[in-house]
Each structure stands twice: as structure tokens, then as C-alpha cells.
């Protein structure tokens, strides 16, 4: 039985400085969101790491919980030394509630080309304490948990 689901929200940025409004319904069977990861998927091919290509703000449960305010970065093209860690969240999802927010592109104009970003929401279909969805619960990592066990891609 699968309890953990990685719900993905993909955003397509087509013009420099674009602001994308997000109104997304998370499936009702998902009860909790336990982590998130935002990453550039494809499109940009910078020669060097871009520490900021945009800002993401997300509110859960019909604007009731402002949970995510994150800078989105883009590694250098063909860079292999990038790490992907899920940031820990613990949000009880109301059935049928909307995930709302905005994404604002801040990519330097010289580096811009249309691109995609993906927001991965690690969700569980179980209530709190029914299943430990944090793989590193025993470790002292208050701010992030290592999704990729050890140093994947590092």
C-alpha cells in the first residue's frame, strides 16, 4: 500500500519577469504535506550556477496557511554536483482546498529563455502520527531532511 505520494506542480515560464498565479487543487485523498522541493526542470542552460531565477510563494488550505516562500535557483548546464533536499513541512490538508500562490521570474535577462520549474510536494494519505514519513526523524536535522539519503548528486 502506498502512503507517500509526490504531487507535482509544473510551471512554465515563457517571458522574462512573468508572474504566474497558482490556483491548484490537491487531490482530496492526500491528508498531509510533509515536504517540498522546488527545482528548475528544463529550459535554461546557464554556463554558471544562477542562484536566483525566481521567487515562489504558496499558501495552503484556501490561503489559510502561508507555508512556502522560496528562491528558485538553477544549476549550471550539465552540472552534476547539485543536491536535492526536501524542505520539511507539516501541513494538514483540508480536503478539496486550494493551493494558491504566485511565481515571479527574476532570471537575468541575458540568461533568459522559456523554462519549466517543478514544485514537488511530498504528501501522505495518512493522518499525522499514523506513519512516520520523515526518513530522517532520528537524525538531528531540524530544517531539512535528506531525500536523497546521504550525498546523492553531491
Amino acid at each position, binding site marked *: 500500500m502506498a502512503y507517500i505520494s509526490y504531487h507535482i506542480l509544473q510551471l512554465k515560464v515563457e517571458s522574462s519577469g512573468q508572474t504566474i498565479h497558482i490556483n491548484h487543487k490537491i487531490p482530496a485523498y492526500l491528508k498531509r504535506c510533509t515536504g517540498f522541493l522546488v527545482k528548475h526542470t*528544463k529550459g535554461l542552460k546557464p554556463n554558471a550556477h544562477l542562484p536566483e531565477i525566481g521567487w515562489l510563494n504558496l499558501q495552503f488550505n484556501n490561503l489559510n496557511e502561508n507555508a512556502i516562500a522560496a528562491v528558485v535557483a538553477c544549476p549550471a548546464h*550539465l552540472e*552534476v554536483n547539485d543536491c536535492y533536499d526536501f524542505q520539511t513541512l507539516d501541513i494538514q490538508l483540508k480536503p478539496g482546498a486550494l493551493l494558491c500562490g504566485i511565481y515571479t521570474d527574476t532570471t537575468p535577462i541575458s540568461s533568459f529563455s522559456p523554462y519549466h520549474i*517543478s514544485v514537488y510536494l511530498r504528501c501522505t494519505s495518512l493522518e499525522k502520527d499514523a506513519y512516520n514519513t520523515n526518513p530522517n526523524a532520528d537524525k538531528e536535522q531540524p530544517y531539512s531532511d535528506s531525500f536523497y539519503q546521504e550525498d546523492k*548528486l553531491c
Partner: protein
Amino acid sequence: MKKHKFQQIRVTVNSPGEALRITAQTDKQYARIRGIYVSLPQESLIAGTMLGLKVNNQEIFEDLHEVKLLTSGNQVAPNQKFFLFEEHLDAAGSAIEGRLTDGAALETVPGDLTPEGYPYEAKIYLWLSNEN
């Protein structure tokens, strides 16, 4: 009998942007799927490539899930390469369904020339185990 097995699923990608359906069955002698690792022959093929996965018709990864999150480079030790499933996933002859979508943009293919790197074979490794 051994407690672990690494079952391989091979998928041949013939052209950029191609989406391929995957069907397989896990080895009946092993109780659970412990982890997954996806191997592509070149680093450049990883960007944008996506893998959706269902086990016994239950969605594990959506079709938009990036292969980059399920693979690792040579700098990672062999016994740490796998993405481990945090929960128990039944193996024991489970039906595996999936969809592999190549990450290259179709419009980048010049004319009728076969683009560099194609066709290639993607390998999906499932770590099967009898341990809890």
C-alpha cells in the same frame, strides 16, 4: 536463497521527446521493493527526462517526476545510489507500469538527422528484498 535482487527494466528510446510505456512484473521470490535507480548512458540525457511509476496500479511517481531525482553520478558510492522507498511496497510478482518521457525538446532536432545520443537504452533498476 539470497535476500536481495536487483531487477533491471530496459527501455530503448529512439528519438528526442519520445514517451514510452513500461510494463513489467517483479520477481515473485522477493517480498518488497526497497528502492529504485535509473541509469542513462549520458549525463546530458538526464535533464528534463521524466519517469512515472505505478506498482499494482498504485501511483508511486507521477508522470512528471524527473529522472534526475532518481539517479546519481559516478561520485556517489555504488551502494548509496538507490532512491529508497520509505514505505513498504509489495514486490512478489507485482505489476509494474510506467511511462518514460525523454527530456529533449522536439524542436531542437535539426532536419531529419538522427540527433547525437539516440537511440539509447535507459535502465531502471529495482532493488528487491526479503528483509523488512
